[in-house]
């Protein structure tokens, strides 16, 4: 994206967005009204940018929208179905509209519905589906034509915990298969944290923060929080002699591991000093921390 802006009437919805996102699974985060869905809809050509430009899979959104749409699968946030059609007909029709020949579209419609877990219900009319099933049907139509990029707008909206878990597991499977990249738009931090490796946080139509979660996770592996019984100044001093930076309060020690030092070295030291380690946590910056910092900035 290069200075991408979208304006409806006299309202600026997206303002001067510039970023390059290349992760396997990219999360779009932001509070309600931040412009996440507008960004997705602009990338899909539903809204025209008022300024700037963007490329999806190397194609410019202002000149090559048809090529982009051929490469993209989209699962919208709201209800999107034809109530009188059976799931298999609906997904088949969507496949055909993407260019699949009718027989192939039918075969892949069955496959996609099996894949998302709607095999038993695939001949039922979509109007009779529960909310969770409708979400799965939307996912099936998004992947039926084998897109290179899957755009999911609030895929866990309205799902109960077990259905949400199933949806997240499926998104992870798709991501791990490496066959397509994912853009997941959500205001649920947990969903993004569970599935994405890059996060773009939007706030009032602007980029508030960009974070590579994989790198953050790797960096956070060096932060430890210990709760130790019998620890005294000697134990802290011994840790510092190993090269770790420590901050001790009562029986809690926060530390940054030195290069080459692993947790087993901490346990060995504790055994030597007769210190019992009751709890050891990697004190990682959660996505919530990142998000809150971005919102405060």
């Amino acid at each position, binding site marked *: 994206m290069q200075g991408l802006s979208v304006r409806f009437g006299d309202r600026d919805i997206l303002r001067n967005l510039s970023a390059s996102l290349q992760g396997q699974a990219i999360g779009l985060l932001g509070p309600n009204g931040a412009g996440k869905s507008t960004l997705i809809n602009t990338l899909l050509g*539903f809204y025209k940018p008022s300024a700037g430009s963007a490329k999806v899979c190397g194609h410019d959104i202002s000149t090559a929208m048809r090529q982009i749409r051929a490469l993209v699968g989209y699962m919208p946030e709201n209800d999107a179905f034809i109530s009188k059609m059976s799931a298999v007909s609906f997904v088949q029709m969507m496949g055909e509209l993407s260019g699949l020949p009718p027989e192939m579209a039918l075969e892949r419609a069955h496959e996609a519905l099996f*894949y998302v877990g709607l095999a038993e219900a695939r001949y039922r009319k979509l109007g009779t589906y529960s909310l969770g099933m409708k979400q799965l049907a939307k996912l099936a139509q998004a992947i039926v034509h084998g897109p290179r990029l899957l755009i999911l707008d609030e895929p866990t909206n309205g799902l109960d915990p077990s259905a949400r878990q199933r949806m997240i597991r499926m998104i992870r499977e798709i991501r791990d298969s490496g066959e397509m990249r994912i853009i997941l738009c959500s205001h649920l931090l947990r969903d993004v944290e569970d599935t994405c490796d890059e996060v773009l946080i939007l706030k009032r139509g602007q980029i508030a923060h960009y974070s590579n979660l994989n790198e953050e996770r790797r960096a956070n592996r060096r932060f430890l929080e210990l709760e130790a019984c019998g620890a005294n100044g000697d134990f802290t001093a011994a840790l510092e002699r190993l090269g770790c930076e420590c901050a001790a309060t009562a029986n809690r020690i926060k530390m940054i591991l030195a290069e080459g030092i692993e947790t087993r070295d901490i346990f060995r030291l504790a055994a030597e000093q007769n210190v019992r380690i009751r709890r050891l946590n990697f004190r990682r910056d959660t996505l919530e921390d990142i998000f809150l910092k971005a919102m405060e900035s």
Partner: protein
Amino acid sequence: MAVYRRSYKPYAGTLTAEWSRFLVLFRYGRKSVFRSKMQTGLFVICFFFPLACLIIIYLAHSASFLAKIGIPAQLISIDSKFFFRYMSVQGALAFLLTAFVGPGLVSPDLANGALPLFFCRPFSRAEYVLGKSSVLALLLSQVTWIPGVVLFVMQASLAGASWAWSNLWIAGSLMLSSLLWIAVLSLLAMALSAWVKWRIVAGALLLAVMFFGAGFGQAINAVLRTDFGYFFNLPYLMGTVWITLFQVDIAQAISITQAGVAILLYCTVCLGLLLRKVRAYEVIR
């Protein structure tokens, strides 16, 4: 791959031609039309009158049979007036068929927000409108100009080549008047159902536009003592065009040019309304 294997695989096969994608909507739309027994029944009823006309044409050329049943041969004349009457009846039936079939084509897509799924694919709004209207176009053609041309061919084969040559313009008038009516009905039905989104209400609204429009027009004419009310009367406007096309001697209050411009205006408004609603998401400014 067997369908029960729960794994994702990308598609690497051939794709259909882009220009032909609108035919997908045509196929699914046509299938949905004939899923309803009532619509199928109505479609069949639309062929009763052409069948009766076919019999009349045959009888008109069976002088001995007419003499036997005591009907003078000159009572049945197959001319432009005959085809005008055919067009008037079939036009009314085409309108009824549209009122039942038309709203079911567009409103289900809008009722539950399915349009973003159409337009997130390499498929444009124009292709969508073309695909949906082609369902109505073929269906209405099957009950208007196609049987009309069959009747003309039947008459030509019985009356001889000289009749066919001197009345060839009737076949042209049949096709032109049918196509004009089909365009008006298709656009009106789709525009109304796109705005109302509720199939039954859209059907009722279509009937209301025709009948209340006509009534409203008549009321204006009566109260203001003018002829401008006829511009609200779509069947009257179309009738004016048909009368001119079939060269029938019936006095009309407005000219063919005025009627043509009014119909064009109706079509433009309907197309505008349709394109305003047929989009992935509405922009609220």
